[in-house]
């Protein structure tokens, strides 16, 4: 009798490994999901509103109506991800029961718990979580996240925070890799990171899970920049369906992510796309509007 194991670290993390070098796009209905799949997205994130509209609407942002996820799951063959509020065990269980392929425990939604994140290792469905430094990344891995994404500042179309977070995480990973093992426990204390996760990073020479970039990608050049800085792939939220020509932007961002160092090709890819989403200068955001500060 053969044994068949579901929900193992290997199948949960492995699913994210298959997404590498790809683009995951936010969509709000079946039509957008088909546009994303036709453009070559590796997955879609099914939402009620894209982050820039969540900002504009204000109020409490929650898990989307299951009808939207069902509609999107019925429309495409690529994996479908969905967002649950930070610490909202029941929203996450509902999404798992629906059969979504990945759950994003996301700071884009209003947190349900201001102290604790989900114990993600208890779920069969894998999770992706946001991070802006290695302490946060390692805590999420410790809780059972199978994939990370640097947070950036969602819904702004401004890449500056995404760059800051990816550079920071990667610099901190390099520091751990080159550090003496004697120094690791104190570093764990400073970062607020689980010691065993840091030890794994030191031995493997890299994070134990895939790390995508998110929060501000608006152009093909932005996506290529994140790949240049060492992202495994990119999430694009508002950047596609808030641009003037979503089909063109979606295709161009996919192509730029694959060929991120082919600059002559990037010239062609970037030409004649129309107007990108309108951006927001980060210093104009008030403290309570900064989504990146949600998560602990």
């Amino acid at each position: 009798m053969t044994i068949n194991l579901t929900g193992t670290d290997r199948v949960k993390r492995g699913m994210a490994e298959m997404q590498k070098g790809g683009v995951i796009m936010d969509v709000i209905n079946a039509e957008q999901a088909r546009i994303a799949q036709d453009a070559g997205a590796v997955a879609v994130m099914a939402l009620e509103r894209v982050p820039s509209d969540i900002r504009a609407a204000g109020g409490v942002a929650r898990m989307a109506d299951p009808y939207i996820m069902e509609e999107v799951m019925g429309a495409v063959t690529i994996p479908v991800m969905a967002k649950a509020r930070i610490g909202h065990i029941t929203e996450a269980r509902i999404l798992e029961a629906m059969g979504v392929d990945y759950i994003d425990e996301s700071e884009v939604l209003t947190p349900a718990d201001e102290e604790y994140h989900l114990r993600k290792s208890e779920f069969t469905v894998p999770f992706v979580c946001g991070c802006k430094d290695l302490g946060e990344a390692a805590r999420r891995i410790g809780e059972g996240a199978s994939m990370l994404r640097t947070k950036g500042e969602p819904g702004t179309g401004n890449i500056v925070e995404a760059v800051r977070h990816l550079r920071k995480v990667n610099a901190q990973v390099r520091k751990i890799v080159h550090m003496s093992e004697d120094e690791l426990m104190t570093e764990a204390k400073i970062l607020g990171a689980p010691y065993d996760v840091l030890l794994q990073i030191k031995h493997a020479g890299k994070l134990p899970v895939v790390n995508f970039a998110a929060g501000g990608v608006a152009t093909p050049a932005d996506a290529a920049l994140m790949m240049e800085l060492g992202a495994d792939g990119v999430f694009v939220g508002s950047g596609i369906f808030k641009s003037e020509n979503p089909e063109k932007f979606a295709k161009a961002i996919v192509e730029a992510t694959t060929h991120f160092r082919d600059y002559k090709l990037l010239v062609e890819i970037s030409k004649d796309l129309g107007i990108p989403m309108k951006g927001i200068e980060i210093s104009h955001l008030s403290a309570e509007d900064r989504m990146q500060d949600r998560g602990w």
Partner: protein
Amino acid sequence: MVKIGVLALQGAVREHIHSIEASGAKAKTVKGVDDLALVDGLILPGGESTAMRKLIDRFEMLGPLRQFAADGKPMFGTCAGLILLAKELVGYDYSHIGVLDATVERNSFGRQVDSFETDLHIKGVALDFPGVFVRAPHIVRVGENVEILATYEDRIVMARQGHLLGCSFHPELTEDHRIMSYFIEMVKESLANKVYL
């Protein structure tokens, strides 16, 4: 030393590169048509087959990939790569590279929550190979020149047709390089045969 390429449009590229190097061959990423001429065999990695196909079309690689197979150069597809190789796909009126005489059904074990690991008996390779199935396809039918190498619960999950090899699962997500060694032997054989042509 034989040189094995990995189609690097999207997906689990670095895992295959690692496995090739750990098995004592040279590895090269293949991003465009020019790279294809430089390799003796090609791996089509796991990833999203629809995304890879869009990029294959956009960068005009479909014809050259078919020619690569027609030239008798070995190709090995894992998961999405198997879908790219198959001649027929259940529910679709088209295929991709379409060289492996088999019909493949996508996502046939269910969604991600149904992804699983199990030990596999692979003919001529291993009695206990760790099979990692992630939203995996399986082979519904094979042509008469195709040898079935592994099944799981009566479903075909690995098959070979001469110089073409395909499997439903992800050997690249494990540290077990026996399937890679098997493929490298296929590439060596194809090079040895070429001498006599």
